[in-house]
């Protein structure tokens, strides 16, 4: 007999099992590192394009060239041209610039509101905490897009209106995260020590709470950016976001709707891909940050 029982069931040996697990861990770590580098590279390329291209090539938002209308992707126009002859690649980059900017500002606004509310609820406790958490529940039970539509409709559609509508509807996640962190911080010995040492409430918040909350707030803000971009593009797509002539990803998908029915797929496809790519990259990066911050609860979603 050539096969020993041990070879027949390799899993039963503790050493083999441990080695297999080590290999597995290494594989997962390598894959995670690869994914992080890919996400970082993608974001870097997009950000560089958004910052540099407008410096090199100026886009005249109003210019149309009907002789070059509806050209499929080619060397001269890698993403093709839209129904009035505007280069889709250049407009997409300008659109991404607007979307990223609006998304970033809106994310910072909502994280600030959420951070303050969460800090107040967690630090004050008692009736104020309960009241604020009910407000959070209340805002959460409104469909965000609907609230956004409502705000934008009643005030003129503009970048400011979009930022406000995202800011006032999306702070609840940050508030929840910050509140639960503050609650867990409150029970730690070093806070007790600070209180016994005679620190004031304000000092505890500034010196002990905020530095410990910063990573969580940062993660919440980073994760909010794709959401805010989505929101901006959805509102623009519905005609309730940025002015129609301005190159924005939502406006471009909306414009592309007409040429799509004529079979010109490129003027809708590429702006959408530019929403998809940064979102995926940011999610991958956030997943990585979360794993670093909390390695024990590594999510299965990380694969």
């Amino acid at each position, binding site marked *: 007999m050539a096969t020993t029982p041990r070879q027949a069931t390799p899993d039963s040996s503790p050493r083999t099992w441990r080695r297999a697990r080590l290999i597995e861990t290494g594989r997962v770590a390598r894959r995670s590192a690869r994914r992080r580098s890919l996400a970082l590279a993608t974001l870097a390329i997009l950000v560089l394009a958004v910052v540099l291209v407008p410096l090199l090539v100026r886009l005249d938002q109003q210019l149309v060239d009907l002789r070059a209308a509806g050209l499929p992707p080619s060397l001269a126009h890698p993403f093709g041209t839209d129904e009035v002859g505007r280069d889709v690649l250049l407009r997409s980059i300008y659109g991404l610039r607007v979307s990223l900017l609006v998304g970033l500002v809106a994310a910072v606004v909502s994280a600030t509101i959420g951070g303050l509310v969460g800090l107040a609820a967690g630090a004050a406790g008692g009736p104020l905490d309960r009241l604020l958490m*009910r407000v959070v*529940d*209340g805002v*959460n*039970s*409104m*469909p*965000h*897009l*609907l*609230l956004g*539509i*409502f*705000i*934008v*409709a*009643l*005030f*003129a559609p503009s970048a400011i209106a979009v930022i406000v509508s995202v800011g006032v509807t999306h702070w609840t996640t940050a508030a929840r995260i910050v509140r639960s962190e503050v609650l867990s911080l409150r029970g730690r010995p070093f806070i007790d020590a600070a209180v016994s040492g005679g620190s004031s409430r304000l000092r505890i918040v500034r010196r002990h709470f905020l530095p410990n909350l910063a990573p969580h707030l940062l993660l919440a803000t980073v994760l909010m950016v*794709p959401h805010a971009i*989505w929101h901006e*593009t*959805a509102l623009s*797509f*519905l*005609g*309730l976001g940025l002015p129609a002539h301005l190159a924005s990803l939502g406006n471009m*998908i909306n414009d*592309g*709707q007409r040429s*799509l*029915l*004529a*079979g010109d*797929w490129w003027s*809708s*496809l590429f702006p*959408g891909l530019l*929403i*998809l790519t940064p*979102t*995926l990259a940011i*999610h991958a990066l956030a997943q990585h940050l979360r794993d670093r911050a909390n390695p024990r609860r590594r*999510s*299965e*979603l990380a*694969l």
Partner: protein
Amino acid sequence: MTWLRIVAWRLAFGVPLLLAVTFAMFALAKASPFDPVRQYLGERAMVTDPRIMAEIRANWGLDRPLVEQYTTWLGHLVRGDLGESRSLRLPVAQVIGERLGWTLLVVGCALVLMLAAGLAVGTLAAWRRDSWLDRLISGTAFANEAAPVFWIGLLAIWLFAVKLGWLPAGGLTDADSAAVTMPDLARHLVLPVAVLAFSQSSWLLLFVRESVIAVLREDFVTGARARGLRERTVLLRHALRSALLPFITIMGARVPELVTGAILVEAVFSWPGVAGTTIKAALAVDFPLLAALTLLATVAVLLGNLVADVAYTVADPRVRVLGVS
């Protein structure tokens, strides 16, 4: 009767919430720089006598203070009168009544499709974990989560309506048909339902996958396998069933996303439902209609949470949800 107490608790939370939401809507409308009378008259505002405009304003009660306007609206609402839509020139109740059914049809079909597909595909991915099939499924789900639903809708129109010509691109019926017939309606229903279900299914699929993977590691699953039960029985009867419990609550929490998805899908496919009407009302700054639709959506979300809570106590008698809410 735990569920009775849950209903009471939810109502105690829901009624003040609805009051707060509606009052906030009125406050926002009051702060809005748009003059609804000018909006209503459009170009005729240029030639209309200011006295007539003042009369319209008085008719709508816009010259009265905020609280008075609000209580009047609330009083009408309690009596079932939602006011008149300013852009469609029809009673709001009639507008909603005509369109609500179409929205419910799309959302209902999408919900069923999404549940069936999400459960099946999620379990499959968990069972074949780390295989190329699993990678493909979870990768698609992640990308789908990041892709805007209106974009997916447009791509679906391009592929199935323009390129392949299998299905109509939008609307309720063909343009030349006078009445709504079943086969025609069914053909028009396919794309909106599929797109809504697809875009909403990725979180469910990922959730089911992760949940089933966790359960597959538990002792009772190993035990069931050791007793020689068929893999299908282990997977469906043991693993999937116990993986599903937390999912009921999450379903309830996802209703806002469903409303959002319905708004966008109806806009893309020009489906004549209430969700798409919201956008028309917003573009026309039609406050009575917009207010009623926002109220409707909030009620839908609250109902969703309530149903999820009750279903959870029915499914798992151990839970005492009261006070946790």
